[in-house]
């Protein structure tokens, strides 16, 4: 029993901090042996109860830029995410604007608006001049934040209606990451523009792969990968990769080869033309979009049509306007 308690504690430590970070855990001393023993036992236990490892089946992706929909959300788009919150097997696209969360998706043969919910409560003071937003999916709920408002908006589906309720203060960026803006500024207090986490990916063997992409205000995008045991109980660092990107970026495994793709945008000035580039995690370019007239303000990678293959959708906005062109890249 004591061993189990100690094991859980050490396992938590192993999960939270990469084992390589603590030299005692790697050594041949008692602590090192204990950590290895506990990790092995936990891995064995987890393996016994874990979902079956299913290697992904690669699909051929044809990269081709095509317009999905044009619409005016009525306020600047701050974040975009694809997720199947209504459980119909097809992901919806959630557009977080400075005022609302708008759900879009396929209804029959039409890609259309499915619903929208407004932020509410007190306006944020101070609010940055260029609004900033985040979006995070927690179970069947989506947590959206806009720098124009003091509190988040928690969105979900009630039967067929999109509903929202007031959330907490701050910006939920990932499951274990909340951040605050530096007061009155357009970046977070850790000098980042954004963070994106995915824990729904698998590596080529089928083991869960956790990916965290962090965009620093310098424009450097750092992607940290962790390979996890089935069920995600324990994870080990599986590499850190560096890219350069504008504020819109995304990670996903569109071709289902077990190696994530990183989708980045240009680092030009606001108002200048832009582009989208899809690269392998190793940096090889898979696709570069035609130059866009406006700035790419959001990217989402999700299976919108439920055919088992993800789509990459980018939102392009002319500077000075709120009108959006949503383009799919594959």
């Amino acid at each position, binding site marked *: 029993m004591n061993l189990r308690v100690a094991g859980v504690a050490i396992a938590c430590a192993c999960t939270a901090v990469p084992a390589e970070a603590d030299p005692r855990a790697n050594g041949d001393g008692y602590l090192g042996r204990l950590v290895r023993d506990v990790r092995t036992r936990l891995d064995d236990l987890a393996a016994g109860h874990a979902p079956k490892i299913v290697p992904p089946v690669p699909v051929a992706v044809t990269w081709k830029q095509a317009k999905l929909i044009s619409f*005016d959300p*009525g*306020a*600047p788009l*701050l974040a975009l995410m694809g997720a199947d919150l209504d459980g119909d097997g097809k992901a919806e696209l959630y557009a977080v604007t*400075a*005022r*609302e969360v708008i759900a879009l998706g396929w209804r029959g043969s039409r890609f259309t608006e499915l619903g929208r919910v*407004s*932020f*509410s409560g*007190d*306006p944020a*003071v*101070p*609010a*940055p*001049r*260029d*609004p*900033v937003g985040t979006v995070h999916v927690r179970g069947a709920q989506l947590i959206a934040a806009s720098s*124009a*408002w003091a509190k988040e908006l928690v969105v979900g589906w009630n039967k067929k209606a999109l509903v929202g309720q007031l959330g907490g203060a701050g910006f939920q960026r990932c499951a274990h990451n909340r951040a605050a803006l530096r*007061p*009155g*500024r*357009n*970046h977070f207090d850790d000098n980042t*523009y954004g963070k994106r986490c995915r824990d729904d990916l698998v590596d080529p063997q089928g083991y869960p792969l956790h990916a965290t992409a962090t965009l620093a*205000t310098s*424009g450097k995008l750092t992607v940290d990968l962790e390979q996890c045991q089935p069920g995600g109980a324990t994870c080990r660092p599986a590499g850190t990769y560096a890219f350069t990107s*504008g*504020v*819109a970026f995304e990670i996903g495994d569109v071709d289902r080869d077990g190696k994530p793709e990183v989708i980045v*945008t*240009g*680092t*030009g*000035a*606001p*108002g*200048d033309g*832009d582009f989208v580039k899809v690269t392998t995690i190793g940096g090889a370019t898979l696709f570069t979009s035609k130059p866009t007239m*406006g*700035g*790419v*303000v959001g990217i989402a990678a999700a299976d919108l049509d439920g055919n088992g293959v993800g789509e990459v959708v980018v939102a392009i*906005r002319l*500077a*000075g*306007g*709120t009108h959006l062109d949503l383009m799919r890249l594959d």
Partner: protein
Amino acid sequence: MPPARDLSEICPKRVSTQTRSGARRARSLTSVGWGVCVIAYLAVSGPVAAETRPKYAGKVEGTLLGAPVTFDPIAARSHPDLVVAELLFDPLYRMGAPGTVQPHLAAAVPVPVAGAARPTVKVQLRRGVRFHDGSQLTASDVVASLERARVQNKWLLAAVSAIRAVAADEIEIETAASVDLATLLSQPATSITKGGRDPGDKPVGTGPYALEALDRAKARLTVKAFDDHFAGRVYLDRLVLHWYTAASAEAGQYETDAIQISSRGTAVYAGSQPTYRADDVEGPKALLVYVGFGRAHAAVTGDPDFRRALDQALVRNGLAALTSGEHVTPASVPVPEEAGGGVLSPAVAAGNLSAAQASLAAAARRVPALAPDRIGSLKLEILVEESRPDDKDIALRVARALLQLGIASTIATLPAPQYAARVRDGNADLWIGQLAAPVMMAPLWWGHAFAAGRDDALVKSYASGRFDAAAAKKLFEARLPIVPLMFRSIKLWHRTDIRGLAFDAAGVPCFAELFLFGSPRSTRR
């Protein structure tokens, strides 16, 4: 509470010259009148956030159209004073380029109070707003500021009968009639000062910049970023604004990169090249240049027929040539075309000397100094502010019109403070003045025009909430409180690494949105 608008929508990213659709909307707003000039929440412009975000750093040296005279937003009349007022202070609402009004220090649109004996609205204030000195904005600051504006600016808040604080972050405004308060409270004159006081020479506002130094000897104003501005810290650390007594001096400063924003072009001589390339941006034609009248020869300049004679004798066609590249439209009414002011016919723009002489003869029947045997000894003085070099050329054309009528004149070029004092005291015959207002808002233009002429004839109609543009025009033509000359836009040339430069609806540059990005492009290959 209605959804908040993005504050940055006040200043669009792109050039804010009026579109045809904007003009159509303006005419429709004007035609339905003042009372129903509703707050339109139209999605028309957006913030700068796009591919990347602006960084917070740097200093830019730019330009004002002339020397600022006052820090008091209530007293701000000229374009430079309005620019400074917008840097240092905030009103409850702001008007965007398309004529839409958005909550600014107010948290939401005014909400009618049910059951009140007179039309009353509640205005919720944003919480957590701070002045430059770190103190918190309170409802009492707002009430005192609006009360002072109501007393000192008779027409603007004429319909307001009472203003009171009902909570720390809420005020009530009682009006004699139903009026579009949000539009009125978006005017710079209603900006909020600490304790509602005249800020004097040490302005403490809530605005995006705080005053660092005003150096009249060196003709420059320096403002620094206010970190705690409720609408977000500005991107620049510091902004220095200069003014000049000669247009070529300003262009020369741009040429050598001593300034990075110029309103007079980028080089002194045609063919010469500045150190860095320039982009340019032009605002709406929302600056009215006019002839104002003082009381030094009150019998002469106060006579409506004398004013009409001057109006008719003026050859406005030539005014279009007095520019550094910006657009100019000659005008005889103080309302821009976009707000229903119409277009001046070529015949009127060319002047009508015989009609002018007839008007002068009518004036001479009442004013002995204008009688044919005495007019030769009359000499009028035209005041010009020295840091507005274009105004000297304009004054010359006014002098020429007077000469056509047989009236001699002199042009006196004065430093801004002396000019402003003499205009304020009426210690002048004529002066070249400026007015700026949101380009599509006819009621505001009429109000400003009568106020510039110290004429209260429209105050009653503003107080009653039954403003009638046709009646205002008729009254204006009868009294001519000022003689409009032209509407002009402001064009700014800026170094290519300066981004975010745009204009608001009144043609005031949105310096709060400026940021630096990348490196300037050299003109040398």
